């Protein structure tokens, strides 16, 4: 296979693999396509859950990140960048991954074709926490003029360690199976750490800078709602919603 350009999607590679070694069929790369739905896709409902992830106690002072090992990183920041492990504003905790953990059994949802963008910019991941559906294309971008390696270590889907040496590169990857969370890191810049929540339905959100989140389009039912945080663990609660109604949920994490 002659490569003619710098940007290759994983699906192109996977197709080439499938036809590259004749004789026996090669299974598609794990992470290449969504698993076949077990049941006919269900459309969502009309219910909305809104809520807030609350942080109680004194938030630790976020550590300043030393980027001096790579001038390309350092030069992009006028002021010091801090870690995003525990980010609290007005009592709201950012970067919690909130998702429906139970209550959707027997239902399946179409795999979105919408591309989820996962960028490397200023030697930080944007976003720090991302939610996607299993099989949904994730476009990994490098917006920095330096080498990043995207070291993804899912346990349910195929792991990969991808070199992205040049600014403007884009590579499409997918995570085939649900997994909360898939850790992503860069070994060149050890402060770079992100998490991707992979679920098999569209009912998830990442708490914003004020700690709030919104999950739309749920069918009526009783659900276990979970909030995952990288340092503070996972909390769950049961939420019952009527068709067309709305519900609210508050998760409270204590300072450790």
């Amino acid at each position, binding site marked *: 296979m002659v490569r003619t*350009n710098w940007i290759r999607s994983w699906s192109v590679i996977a197709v*080439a693999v499938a*036809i590259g070694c004749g004789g026996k069929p090669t299974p598609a790369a*794990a992470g290449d396509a969504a698993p076949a739905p077990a049941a006919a896709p269900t459309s969502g409902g009309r219910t909305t859950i809104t809520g807030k992830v609350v942080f109680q106690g004194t938030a630790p002072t976020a550590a300043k990140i030393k980027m001096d090992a*790579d001038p390309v990183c350092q030069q992009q920041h006028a002021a010091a960048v801090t870690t995003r492990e525990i980010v609290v504003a007005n009592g709201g905790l950012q970067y919690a991954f909130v998702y429906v953990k139970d209550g959707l059994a027997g239902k399946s949802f179409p795999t979105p074709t919408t591309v989820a963008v996962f960028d490397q910019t200023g030697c930080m991941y944007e976003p720090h926490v991302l939610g996607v559906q299993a099989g949904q294309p994730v476009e990994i971008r490098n917006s920095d003029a330096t*080498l990043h390696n995207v070291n993804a270590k899912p346990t349910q889907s195929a792991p990969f*360690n991808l070199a992205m040496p040049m600014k403007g590169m884009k590579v499409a990857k997918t995570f085939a199976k649900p997994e909360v969370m898939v850790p992503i890191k860069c*070994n*060149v810049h050890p402060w770079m750490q992100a998490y991707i929540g992979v679920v098999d339905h569209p009912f998830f959100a990442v708490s914003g800078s004020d700690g709030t989140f919104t999950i739309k389009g749920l069918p009526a039912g009783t659900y276990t709602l979970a909030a995952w945080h990288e340092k503070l663990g996972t909390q769950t609660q049961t939420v019952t919603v009527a068709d067309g109604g709305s519900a609210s949920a508050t998760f409270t994490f204590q300072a450790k």
Partner: protein
Amino acid sequence: MWLVGGLCASAAEVSARPAPDLAAGREAYVTNCARCHGDQGHGDGPDAARMIPRPRDFTTGTYKFRMTASGTPPTDEDLFHTISTGLAGTRMPGWEGLSEDTRWQLIAYLKSLAPSLARATPQPVASFGKDPGVKGADLAKGKQLYADLGCAACHGTAGRANGPSAKTLKDDWGQPIRAANLTHGWELRGGEEPKDLVARLMTGVDGTPMPSYADTVPAANLWQLAYYLRSIQEPANWSGSLTVVSAASLPTSPDDPAWAAAPRADLRLWSNVYVNGAVVRTMVPWAMVQAVATADTIAFRIAWDDPSEDHGTPPDQLALAFKPAIGGREVGSLQSWPKPGTPALDLIVWSAATGTAREAISESLDLPVTAEARPAQAQYADGRWSLVITRPRPTTATPWALVIWDGGNGETGRIRSVSSWTDLDLNHKEKDHGSH
């Protein structure tokens, strides 16, 4: 046969493979592998702690050297290749002495140790591109790619494992890991040939920070990079003897062009200090030595790779040891020297702290105050020390050895890298020219 791009063909060539027999594989494993890799394959055999790098833990299912896509398991052929040829720069030998049937049974057994291997399928890399051959290699382009693709971030500008990210690298299990020194072809685990290097670039080295470039860089470029990497490998000469060249005058600086005429002797160095049964890792596994002599004076040039230039506490240091020509008992291995009752050595000790060298016959590494100063000139550039030391020419072919400390790694005293004894061939040019 092992050819890049020939994976499908080689799979077809391997025809008579036995039906998997886990009991047979287990038996061969216990006999041949368990001593290092552990009875249950956890990489924790009785000899494991004495090794750097440590033996693989087979239960993780993570294998570095594959012809398969990043993150996917090796093919059986990949494992067969590794078992058969061993891994350069490690204690893993080649096992071609085992029958092919036994090696296939070992592979079946190894795979049974890793639950993760049952869940994932090897994804062979579709194509490793076309080898342009030496004639098609564009070294300037390869060098540019080395810079453009960010290799220097870990491997360093000159490939000597001293990039700005090298110190913080960790493996998948959170343990510190060193980038490969790309100039040391002999210790590149997966092989030093361009085809081996292209394979590593395209598959990545799973379990380590080394990523795959298959998705982002055309194979043709990776071949050019690989030929460049091949060109920067040291042309090591492991002769065990250093030929001293005679000359009318001596080169004094490390970059004097006169050194080009002097043959080299390359030495391996290693750590011999164990704490709780585990070997203490030191940072200098290699040095290169040349020598030029006039009728009464000899100059040694010694080069070694060290990821950091350390003048502080502790400093980088080197000792050039000679067995003194004083008769009596001889020092055996330098590894355990000094210990009570062992004979003295003729030592030249150079320290980056002072930039000076002193020589004395000494029973310890702390030279007496009566030690004589020796002219020394050192340069540090791109991860390499280059040092010239001058002393009186020995009258007999005295065996010599090196001891090197990397101060940046906290090495001092017995925490050091040591070579074995090497011959000094003083008669080379004298025979040729009939002097004396």
